[in-house]
């Protein structure tokens, strides 16, 4: 036991030692590491071989592959970014206050120089003022630019939704600080400060006001977009959690049955989904104009081929007999339908004899069966469609002793 705790103690002190040594490395090579941060690659010329070895061993630097240069380890890069982000945020505010202080001082010496007629000093002060104003502008512009970049990449530099949400939050705080910084600039005070001097007025009032108002609009726009994006992130996160939560709940409670919302007096919108209804339509022959068009369309249809063989082949052996009969019946029906189409096609709506049609065609149906099907097809039509045709039966009495009549043929004609 005592050996064990001694061992632990030794381990702990070794960890502490290595840890502090490695942290010290960061401080010792701070300049080089910061150069690596800004340039992407470590400037090897400013590092000794042993220093490079130590930094690689401490995993502060790494070499992604043989060909590429030495880079900052991603974790270290993140750490620096983290520290710098905070720093810049804290500084924008202080910087504005400081810059304003400097501007006030410069304006005072400028006026002093003017009242003393020191033209050279006057020029000097004006130039410095210009630089300060440009600098202030540049800082805001850079900050806004970087915000847009992060926004437009959808915070692509972090992959997890949680990290995106955190980055977004951080960016929103940065905007708040930048806006605070802008609010420090009080134009009433500046107007009073510059008095009636035209050059100062132009620089510190009209020009600066214009620029700052652009920054302000820019910041508000980024802010709006960030909030929108945040709402989207949050919504995605919420959906994900809702679905996994419900799935887990249903797995744990297999017998779960929610209320029957359809029986409520007020049925909830989401549940009220009407039954499907198909807007069916069939060819109708009750309009003359349409009949012609339909006839044309039917003509353009490819002739269906009678594939009785395939039906036969696909059917189980014992059902062959009945399916063969069904197939024959189907073929007969189709042939009769073709006959009806040819009637529709008659240019002067002339009557067509069913038997004549049969003889002229390659079809081989017995006359009786053929006539029977032509008549039953007519009887099977809806009444409205029946009216489109005229079916005339050529018949004779079978004998003088009863009223049995024999049908010799039928003529079918379009009713015009």
């Amino acid at each position: 036991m005592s050996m064990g705790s001694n061992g632990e103690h030794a381990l702990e002190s070794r960890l502490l030692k290595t840890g502090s040594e490695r942290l010290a490395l960061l401080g010792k090579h701070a300049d080089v590491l910061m150069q690596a941060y800004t340039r992407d690659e470590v400037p090897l010329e400013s590092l000794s071989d042993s220093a490079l070895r130590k930094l690689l061993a401490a995993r502060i630097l790494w070499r992604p592959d043989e060909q590429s240069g030495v880079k900052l380890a991603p974790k270290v890069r993140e750490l620096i970014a983290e520290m710098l982000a905070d720093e810049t945020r804290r500084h924008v505010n202080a910087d504005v206050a400081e810059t304003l202080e400097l501007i006030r001082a410069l304006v005072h010496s400028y006026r002093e120089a003017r009242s003393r007629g020191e033209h050279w000093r006057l020029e000097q002060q004006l130039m410095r003022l210009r630089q300060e104003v440009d600098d202030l502008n540049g800082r805001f512009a850079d900050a806004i630019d970087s915000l847009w970049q992060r926004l437009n990449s959808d915070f692509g530099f972090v992959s997890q939704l949680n990290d995106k949400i955190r980055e977004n939050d951080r960016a929103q705080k940065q905007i708040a600080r930048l806006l605070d910084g802008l609010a420090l600039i009080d134009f009433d005070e500046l107007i009073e400060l510059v008095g009636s001097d035209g050059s100062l007025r132009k620089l510190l009032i009209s020009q600066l006001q214009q620029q700052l108002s652009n920054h302000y609009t820019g910041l508000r726009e980024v802010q709006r977009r960030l909030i929108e994006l945040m709402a989207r992130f949050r919504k995605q996160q919420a959906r994900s959690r809702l679905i996994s939560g419900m799935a887990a709940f249903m797995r744990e409670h297999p017998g779960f049955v929610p209320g029957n919302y359809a029986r409520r007096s007020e049925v909830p919108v989401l549940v009220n989904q009407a039954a499907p209804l198909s807007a069916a339509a069939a060819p109708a022959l009750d309009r003359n104009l349409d009949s012609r068009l339909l006839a044309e369309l039917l003509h353009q249809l490819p002739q269906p081929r009678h594939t009785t063989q395939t039906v036969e082949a696909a059917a189980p052996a014992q059902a062959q007999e009945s399916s063969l009969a069904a197939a024959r019946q189907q073929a007969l029906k189709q042939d009769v339908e073709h006959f009806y189409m040819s009637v529709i096609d008659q240019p002067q709506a002339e009557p067509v004899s069913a038997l004549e049609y049969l003889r002229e065609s390659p079809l081989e149906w017995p006359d009786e069966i053929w006539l029977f099907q032509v008549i039953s097809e007519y009887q099977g039509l809806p009444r409205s469609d029946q009216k489109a045709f005229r079916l005339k039966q050529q018949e004779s009495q079978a004998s003088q002793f009863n009223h049995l009549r024999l049908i010799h043929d039928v003529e079918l004609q379009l009713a015009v």
Partner: protein
Amino acid sequence: MIEHGPLLERLLAGEFVCPISDESGYRHLTNEETREEIDTYLRPLNRRLASNEDGSVYFLAWRQLNDNARDQLSRQLGDTLNSLLPLLEWLQLVQEALGRDTLAAPGDVLKPAEFSAKCEDNQSLRERLERLATDSFFGSQSDQLDAQVKQVFKRLKEHGYLLQPHSERQVFVVTGKIDYLVDLVRFIRDEENLPIEEGSEEGSGSQEALL
């Protein structure tokens, strides 16, 4: 009205119209006047236009809830509930297999081949897919991974959750009906007071504590 014919047919057939499933139809439906016109047309059919809360998907609802309509709705609700767990599990499986940290959303492109490949490499995903595919809702009879994935995608397409823009290409797009499904889940959670968190901050909180 005639210009909305195809749109009406889709709606009457029970389809959900979203920007993915019918872009121009959906655009027409965002116009209030068109919606009113369609509603008037649907009146004798005892139907009206309905949408989910954010209006990301439109469908037809009964106008008057007579007994027949209620019977039909009850049956339909039963079907939906039976298919709910398999659908939710599929959503989770997609999210995990493709390494995403968000749920499949309208417009997302899904490729069965990619999905198969991910499941092939991972025994646990493979097993979950197997269980899911052979569930009665998806109804796969096969023990082959590719055939199972194909069947799952086919069923999702039939149910309108996925769209296949080119019938000869195995690429699918998630439709707005997914939004409807998520809304329905949220509705059931709220109605039944189920202990399911949605907006909790635990994820980010615990990670921040680690820093």
